């Protein structure tokens, strides 16, 4: 049986760990609130943009825009969004697993799958595995800006247009609620032409708009923005999901620490009681021996 002193030290150490996890949980909760607000306020724009895109792109004559071109897919670029920091449960692991699964499923069918990463955790993980990382975007998550999303979207569009890659997939955690994150795989490029997917039966036909200056110019302006916005939305989702995951993880850690403390306290009390009993027995039997 461990000595009283050892148990006491142990309790103290678990308590200070608990203090840290509790503080981290609170920080994550505050960040989550902000990130959640950002996601929710960005959603109307995404939705509105999708609506405009659908109505513009459904004009058959325009479906030939290069960014909408489906071609035989030989090279896929995967953009994986993870976090810079750990201690957020299965958040990064889920992305890493999904990317590996995607690679396994597709490696036989296509010539090459290349990778670019956002977030230090994903970058380190894939580098350790010996996967080639075409590009990493360090420091982007700590100060999220729309211009960064625009930059990434432009790079990817250029690669796509030059024919270097034939498709771009986005792998990220979607923020479902404060307790659930879901890994999403989104095809960023080529932009899936809404006209090609048959409209749902009974769907209201889009209003015939007039365009100024003309539909082609609008589409050309719209598509890059649409891409940038998809990247932006994914980044916001991921950031909110990360903080939600960290909050849950730290909450559990705090609870586990509390369990551990109560177990250790019980053990401490038992040990102390055992020692007292032992001493008493010794005294009593000593006294009896004298009689």
């Amino acid at each position, binding site marked *: 049986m461990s000595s009283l002193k050892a148990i006491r030290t142990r309790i103290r150490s678990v308590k200070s760990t608990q203090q840290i996890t509790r503080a981290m949980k609170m920080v994550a909760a505050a960040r989550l609130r902000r990130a959640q607000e*950002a996601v929710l*306020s*960005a959603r*109307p*724009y995404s939705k*509105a*943009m999708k*609506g*405009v895109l659908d*109505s*513009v792109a459904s004009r058959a004559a325009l479906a030939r825009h290069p960014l909408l071109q489906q071609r035989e897919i030989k090279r896929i670029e995967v953009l994986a969004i993870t976090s810079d920091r750990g201690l957020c449960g299965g958040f990064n692991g889920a992305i890493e697993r999904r990317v590996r699964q995607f690679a396994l499923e597709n490696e036989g069918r296509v010539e090459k799958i290349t990778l670019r990463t956002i977030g230090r955790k994903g970058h380190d993980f894939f580098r350790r595995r010996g996967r080639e990382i075409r590009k990493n975007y360090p420091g982007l998550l700590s100060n999220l800006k*729309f211009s960064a*999303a625009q930059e990434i979207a432009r790079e990817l569009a250029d690669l796509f247009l030059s024919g270097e890659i034939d498709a771009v997939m986005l792998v990220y955690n979607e923020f479902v609620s404060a307790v659930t994150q879901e890994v999403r795989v989104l095809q960023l490029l080529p932009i899936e032409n809404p006209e090609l997917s048959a409209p749902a039966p009974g769907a209201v036909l889009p*209003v*015939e*708009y*007039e*365009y*100024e*200056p003309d539909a082609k*110019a*609008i589409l050309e*302006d*719209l598509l890059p*923005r649409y891409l*940038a*916005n998809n990247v*932006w939305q994914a980044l916001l989702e991921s950031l909110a999901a990360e903080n939600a995951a960290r909050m849950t993880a730290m909450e559990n850690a705090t609870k586990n620490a509390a369990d551990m403390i109560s177990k250790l306290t019980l053990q401490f009390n038992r040990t102390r009681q055992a020692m007292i009993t032992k001493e008493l027995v010794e005294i009593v039997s000593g006294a009896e021996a004298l009689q």
Partner: protein
Amino acid sequence: MAKVHLEIVTPERKVVSADVDELRAPGASGLFGVRVGHAPFITAISPGELSYELDGQPRRYAIGGGFIEVSENSVRVLADTAEAAEEIDLERAQRASANARERLKGLTEASPEFSSELWRVRRAAVRIQVARRAKV
């Protein structure tokens, strides 16, 4: 009188959601006005001032880049940026304008940054204009 539902959204947030009688916005081919029953159309935004009245008060916004979607009784503005006139810091806008102009001088039309710098100059000019007009 029936009102037009106006919504201004940017990638970062929803800026405005209001019912208005009439609004004026800068389209690709010039300033246009919208009232209820306007023919549906979609236009690119050229940087400029969007204005309307709410509760008798004029509201002005400096908007830059994006689209405006007009349907029968609603207007959706998808702007890259939208700033209310009261939010604009005139001094900062003037500094930004001066900086952008300075950079533009060092560029030729052929250089890749030219168009984005030109864009910046135009946007700064719009912001200054909108902020000034709101003060009068």
